[in-house]
């Protein structure tokens, strides 16, 4: 019981820190300019995708190499809703796109959680590539390699729309706060999930499957639900991404994009709650600047990835928190 009392204060501290970060993020756009704001939106969206992905990798211990599928499903849902149903409202995109992403992840998850480790990875990879090749081949539905264009949506049930003069500037600034709000909600939901009994059960399964089974946990069911939640979060990221990008192509379904999601999670650190958030934002900057700096940006990213796995396997957040723990030990030796 004493543990509960002493853990109240760090928790409060954490919430205060999160609130401060959120306020800082909200105050940022006027200072950093339009281009940086746009980049930051991409970063926040990547953070949502990685946050969802990490529920599987960090908390359930399953490495998916097929999360591009859910990102792509989200993106293409929006494109279809606009083209075939003429829907322009962001809220409707989310309301309709989320169940689509959830259904797809439920279906994929149902198949994939029958395996773990390497076979799980290959299975997710194979299934995501089914979607990729279908998108590629059925070009009269999906636009093929040209992809589908997506116009700027209206926000807040059509109250805010972006046409006329300075439309792009207003869209970026408005959309930043929109995505920031969704991001904050996602973080809170994910926080609640991983700290709930359900989240604890996932971690128990990750650490020792046999023991968890003896405790009466229905392992496959838990993994399936985790997969579903994880895919839905990544799908939401796809939904948010496409109006900003203005175009969706089969590239977002192709498996190297899944690799990027894994990469960003690892960059931040998958044994941390905040790791994938930091990783998603950092990766976006890293990739953008690498692409701008050199034609051989893949090489740069590859080298970073190899070094990361070698030297910082717990990611940036993991390394910082390890350093912080060490410092605290030095200050007051037990």
């Amino acid at each position: 019981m004493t543990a509960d009392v002493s853990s109240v204060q760090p928790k409060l501290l954490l919430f205060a820190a999160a609130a401060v970060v959120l306020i800082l993020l909200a105050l940022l756009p006027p200072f950093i300019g339009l281009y940086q704001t746009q980049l930051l939106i991409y970063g926040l969206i990547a953070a949502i995708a990685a946050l969802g992905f990490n529920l599987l990798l960090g908390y359930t211990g399953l490495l998916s190499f097929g999360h591009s599928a859910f990102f792509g499903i989200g993106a293409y849902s929006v494109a279809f809703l606009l083209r075939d149903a003429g829907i322009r409202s962001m809220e409707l995109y989310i309301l309709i796109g989320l169940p689509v992403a959830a259904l797809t992840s439920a279906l994929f998850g149902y198949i994939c959680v029958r395996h773990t480790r390497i076979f799980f990875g290959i299975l997710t990879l194979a299934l995501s590539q089914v979607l990729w090749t279908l998108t590629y081949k059925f070009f009269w539905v999906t636009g093929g390699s040209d992809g589908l264009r997506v116009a700027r949506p209206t926000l807040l049930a059509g109250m805010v729309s972006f046409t006329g003069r300075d439309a792009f500037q207003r869209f970026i600034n408005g959309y930043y706060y929109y995505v920031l709000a969704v991001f904050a909600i996602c973080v809170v939901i994910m926080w609640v999930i991983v700290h709930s009994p359900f989240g604890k059960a996932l971690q128990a399964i990750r650490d020792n499957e046999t023991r968890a089974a003896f405790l009466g946990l229905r392992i496959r069911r838990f993994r399936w639900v985790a997969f579903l939640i994880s895919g839905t979060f990544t799908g939401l990221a796809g939904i948010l991404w496409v109006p900003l990008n203005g175009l969706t192509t089969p590239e977002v379904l192709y498996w190297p994009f899944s690799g990027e999601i894994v990469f960003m999670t690892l960059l931040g650190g998958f044994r941390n709650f905040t790791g994938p958030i930091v990783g998603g934002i950092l990766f976006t900057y890293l990739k953008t600047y690498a692409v701008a700096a050199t034609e051989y940006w893949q090489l740069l990213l590859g080298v970073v990835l190899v070094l990361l796995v070698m030297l910082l396997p717990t990611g940036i957040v993991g390394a910082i928190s390890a350093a912080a723990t060490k410092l605290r030990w030095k200050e007051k030796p037990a």
Partner: protein
Amino acid sequence: MSILIIQILNSLFYASVLFLIAAGLSLIFGVMRIVNMAHGTFYAVGAFVTAWLVGRASALGVPAGWTFLLIPVGAGAVALLGIAIEPLLRPFYRRAEEYQLLVTFGLLLILEDVIRFLWGGLPLSADPVMDVLPSVRFGGLIYPGYNLVVIAIGVAGAIGLWAVIYRTKFGVMLRATSQDRRMASALGLNVGLVYVSAFAIGCFMAGLGGAIIVPTQTAVLGMGIDALILAFVVVVIGGLGSLQGALVGALIVSFVRTAGIQFFPEVELAVLYLIAAVVLLVKPTGLFGTA
């Protein structure tokens, strides 16, 4: 009738190349327990090196018949590349699978750009090799003689690999290491050497696959990434780490693909991935896998 023969030959041609890639992937996994995501890129390197060498040789006026010899040279270059890269992987043998996957994924990103750096983004071709051999007639249809050579190389590769693994002392060492690395090491085997050799052979096979296919098509960026997924499908169907599995898997994938291009071109690749998924569900270890 002759169309059917040509389609069967096409499937066998395709199966030969796919077998070489998949067998290398499977061998590396079987011995080293690493799923090498950069494996497809080794295949691409083989194609690029061979196409480049053939282009150089033609420019220097080497008779086209001699350019055949450049195919094993291209494959050998990939084996050397593998020997150079293997030490990089050593720290990861004892680490979790996630890290191994990621490190080879990083390797893939690096190698793809190295290819682009060395040969630019343009496709490279090695037509002279293909033009050396006359075409063969089947009924009213003609078929390139070179494709028959590729099938022969695929068959020779399968027999050669089988002979090395099951009929030589080195094969015994490979299999012993694959079954129990620590026991093999305790019995005095130089496990490190076995690892380098296995990785080099695996890379050689991937490089050979690239080297023999490049005269019939061009070497393009991204060909390795596509090939890797197909090789995955093959080893998943056949069983990771199994030689017979790679052979049967390559045949299944090639025949389904040939039929697919003929009858259901839109979903041809999707069907392959679905077959892989179904096999994983019904028999996770693949048709011939044990582990």
